[in-house]
Each structure stands twice: as C-alpha cells, then as structure tokens.
C-alpha cells in the first residue's frame, strides 16, 4: 500500500491502516508457493461470524481504512457477504483477495450489494497440472468467466500472478492473457520464499537469466499497454540483493488477523521464535497493536544490530524482513540475508547459484494441503 505513514521512532506508533482478515486457511487449491504457514492444519479453530464482526469494529475504531478479506480461499466462508457488508458500513475500503474458485453470479451480486469495493483475482494453482497451465485452457475459462462477473458488477479487473521457475518462461503469454481478459492492473509477484515457497524453493527459484528475460518482456508489454494496463513487477529480492522494507515497517501499517484470531504484523510472523502474539479472543485490537510485545519487538530501529545499526539505509529498508532473517540466518534480529552486507548473504547467493546451475532439487515438490501440513509439522 502506498502510504507515507511515519515509522514509529520512539513515539507512539500510528494507527494500523490496513486490516487483513485471513478468514480461513481452507482452500480448494494446493499452490506450492502458498504463503499460509506450513503448520496451518494446527490452527483450524476459525473465528465465528460474531468474533469477526467485533474485529472489524475494533479495527475501524483504531483507524484502519483498508480491509482485505483473504485466506485460504475467503469464498469458503459462507458469512463473507455479512462481513463485507459490516466492513463497508463501518467505512472501510473493502478488498477481496480470491482465486475466483467458488465465485458465481449470485455471490458476485450479493458481494456487490454488500458494498465490496474491489476484487483482486489471483491465478489458481497451475503447477499440479502443468500441461493445463501451459495451454491455459482451464485457467483461461475460469478467469474469463470471473472476468465477466467482475465487469457486470462494475469492478475493475485486477490480477495477481505469482511468478516462479515453473511459469516464468510463459510470462509473455500470461501478460497477453491478462490483456485479453481486460485487466487494468496486473501484479507479477515474483515468489517470496516463505512457508510453502520456502519448502519448495529449489523448484521455484528462477535463474538470473530467466528473470532478466522476464523483466525485459514485461517492460516491452508496459510500453505497448501504456494507459490501458498497469503492470507491477515485484522485485525478486534474492537476485537483486536489496532488502525490502517488509510490510512497510513492522507494526507500522499492517495488522493481520489469522483465521484462529491470532493478531500478527504479517501473515508469516507466527514462525518467529520467542514471540507470542495475542489472539483477539484474549485482548482488544487496541491493546494488541499498542501494547503487545509481539507488535513492539521490531518496531522502528532500536532492536537492530550490526551491520544494520550503522547502515545509512536502515531507515529505508528497516533491515529487511524479520522472517527471512530467521529462516536464513536463524536469527530474527539479524540483517535480512538478501543484503550483501549480511554475514549470511552466502545462503542467498548459494541458492541463486544452484538455480543458475540448473541443479535438480533433492526433494520432490510439496503441495500445500492438510496431509502435508501435518506431516511437516507433526
């Protein structure tokens, strides 16, 4: 989100502006790059409708203006229309992040009359049936059907495609398809390596050459589609060696509520050791946002160590991503290892070198499903 909310530098933090309601971890798809936690099967106690309504009210009272409904697949919640209607009535700008699986004309109309402002349509899991993906037949049919529904309801067509080694060679066709579907905005989201994508990293990390070609193709399309479609190419931080200002700052703008009510600064923060995040069943959002240790721990720059402390870029990138630091350096206070100044940068360059060398992954690809979740996290 492009806001200029100030980072909390010793002062009381500003309000959460973005409330992300992850309504469920249930999903009809099995995407190998899914950002839901790999132990999602251990967090299946979903909040009730009444609890979600309270969360929406408390978030709005704190000052949140953007509300995202995501998952899993949020359309699997039968009370989605009720929650959207309440969010709209409270004055949120309401966004639904969905694969479109399960959307039909009746639900689209109900969501529209509930006041849903915007739908971001993501591509479904295409890797299980690579042939289908390559031909795009089923994907294209589903997306065109959903595209028609969006048009009927007056929503813009906003698409998101996660890009990885298994589809990056088809980026030209993907952009062409988005254009055929009348997309006004297309996000080409280079995979971020957390959760399931981290498990499958050796399968998903593209080569440096593939990325260079993909970016050149994207640039050419940008020129061709100027004024018709905006294309956003998410920076691949492993290859670019540039830490991202993750979530626009820890506990700065984003407040994620997981399906079981855990309140998190981002959807993957629960993995960090030594931090407890309260649930909305125990505490009010206000207490959680302003007072909980989980939200205060990595706010601002006070928690940093070297090389971040003396780095001239520390205010710009805030040391990168805490989850990535933990995953790659086993230390959530470390500099994000994608940064060349990090003593653990070798973990990133070795992963990229292995991708460039076309080394066959040692493990088979792992699909995101309940059985695998229980197997990985017994």
């Amino acid at each position, binding site marked *: 989100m*492009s*806001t200029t909310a100030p980072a909390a530098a010793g002062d009381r933090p500003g*309000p959460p502006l973005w409330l992300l309601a992850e309504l469920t971890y249930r999903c009809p798809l099995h995407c190998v790059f899914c950002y839901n936690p790999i132990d999602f099967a251990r967090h299946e106690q979903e909040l009730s409708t009444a609890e979600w309504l309270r969360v929406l009210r408390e978030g709005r009272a*704190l000052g949140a*203006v*953007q509300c995202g409904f995501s998952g899993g697949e949020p359309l699997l919640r039968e009370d989605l229309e009720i929650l959207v209607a309440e969010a709209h009535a409270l004055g949120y*700008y309401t*966004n639904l992040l969905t694969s479109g699986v399960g959307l039909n004309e009746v639900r689209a109309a109900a969501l529209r009359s509930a006041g849903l402002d915007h739908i971001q349509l993501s591509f479904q899991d295409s890797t299980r049936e690579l042939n289908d993906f390559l031909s795009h037949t089923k994907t294209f049919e589903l997306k065109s059907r959903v595209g028609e529904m969006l048009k009927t309801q007056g929503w*813009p067509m906003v698409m998101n495609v996660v890009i990885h080694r298994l589809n990056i060679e088809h980026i030209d066709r993907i952009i062409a398809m988005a254009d055929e579907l009348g997309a006004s905005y297309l996000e080409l989201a280079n995979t971020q390596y957390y959760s399931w994508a981290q498990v499958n990293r050796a399968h998903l990390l593209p080569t440096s050459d593939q990325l260079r070609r993909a970016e050149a193709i994207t640039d050419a399309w940008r020129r061709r589609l100027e004024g018709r479609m905006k294309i956003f190419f998410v920076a691949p931080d492993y290859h670019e060696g540039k830490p991202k200002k993750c979530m626009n700052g820890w506990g700065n703008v984003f407040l994620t509520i997981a399906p079981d009510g855990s309140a998190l600064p981002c959807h993957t923060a629960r993995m960090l050791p030594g931090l407890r995040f309260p649930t909305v069943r125990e505490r009010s959002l206000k207490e959680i946002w302003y007072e909980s240790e989980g939200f205060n721990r990595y706010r601002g720059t006070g928690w940093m160590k070297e090389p971040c402390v003396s780095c001239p870029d520390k205010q710009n990138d805030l040391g990168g991503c805490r989850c990535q630091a933990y995953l790659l350096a086993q230390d959530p206070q470390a500099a994000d290892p994608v940064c060349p100044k990090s003593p653990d940068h070798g973990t990133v360059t070795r992963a990229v070198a292995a991708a460039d060398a076309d080394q066959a992954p040692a493990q088979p690809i792992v699909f995101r499903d309940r059985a695998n979740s229980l197997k990985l996290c017994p």
Partner: protein
Amino acid sequence: MTTPDRVLPRLAHGFRLQWEEAQGCHVLLYPEGMVKLNRSAGEILARCDGRTTLEHVVAQLETAFDTKGLDAEVAKFLELAAAQHWVELT
C-alpha cells in the same frame, strides 16, 4: 483546461474520498491503497462530485476560505490529480 464553466471534475471510478478522524485528514482510497491528502487537496477533491463545474468548485473554495484568485492553483492541482488517475475531468 480552458473551459472551467464546462469541466465537471469527479473522482475516478473505484476511488473514494473520506475524512479520517484518526489521521486528522482527508484520505483518498483505491484498491489496496491510500493517499493522505493535505488540507487544500482534501478541500478541492471534496467538491469534485461530477455535478459541480470547475468554475463553481473554485467559487465555493474562494467563499469557504474568504479569498480570491484560486483558479490557477485549483486547476494545477486537478491536472496533477488527473495525471495520477485520481480524478476525471470531463
């Protein structure tokens, strides 16, 4: 923008303007994003309802702030806002 008596500025499709008490300012909301507006931008956009001509928007602002000669400033801001696709000048 040579015909302020004909131009009817309005927010672009999918954009919403609202006053946010927690931030003490007007914000412009759009899919997954937000722009915080300074006071004059908020006051101008609050009057871009698609029914009020640019000429009247300027007149209303001049009355509200008890001043004169805002036309160039307002037109310049709206051109920038249109370049950002926040408003449509039709």
